[in-house]
């Protein structure tokens, strides 16, 4: 699946997007954040305050317990500040 990053998450990870292949045990958004956090310092910093990080699955808002296995694109970003 494709992971895409925005704003401070993008800056800390240093990528706008990447292909990821989490193992079968990683089933939810929260679990995927945990798995990504272990990939390196930038990831750990991006997700340090995991409770504030929002996610979208295939461009729809998702929750920490949303299942990710069918996702083609999963996005991570801080709380939105548009408008």
């Amino acid at each position, binding site marked *: 699946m494709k992971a895409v990053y*925005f704003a401070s998450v993008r800056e800390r990870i240093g990528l706008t997007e990447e292909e990821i292949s989490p193992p079968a045990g990683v089933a939810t958004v929260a679990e995927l954040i945990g798995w990504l956090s272990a990939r390196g310092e930038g990831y750990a910093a991006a997700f340090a305050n995991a409770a504030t990080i929002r996610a979208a699955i295939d461009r729809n808002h998702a929750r920490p317990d949303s299942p990710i296995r069918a996702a083609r694109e999963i996005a991570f*970003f801080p709380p*939105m500040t*548009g408008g």
Partner: protein
Amino acid sequence: MVAPTVRLCAGPFDAAREEALLLQGRTDIGALVCFTGLCRDEAGTLAALELEHYPGMAESEIAAIAADALTRWPLQGLTVLHRYGLIRPGEKIVLVAAAARHRGEAFAAAEFLMDYLKTRAPFWKKEHRADGREGGWVEAKASDDAAAERWQE
């Protein structure tokens, strides 16, 4: 059913033209509420805002919020424009224009749109400081979350 106008803009937009388009040829509209959000210079400390967005989701999320508003109030017209990219102080960031027979519906719909845009549309603002120092990402406000929550049953 009214088809809302939703558009992302890479450059400045003409709010007056959008308002005129909403009213053009209509004699059934009694109330038009237009909200414009603008970039402030924060007492001269801000050189610009950079608006990052999630292409694809930004459009679809605004369209979903607009469709939600149309189920809540009997609107006769609805336009939502949102800028992205670099925005200078004094420039417009967002326009919400809601037309209805009566003012209560138009006011409520415009406030609802803004509250939901603030908390659900995937945009993020980064500050460019006038003194050249690195600006930060604008923090989300708890007051915006509270404003959005009041529309939930």
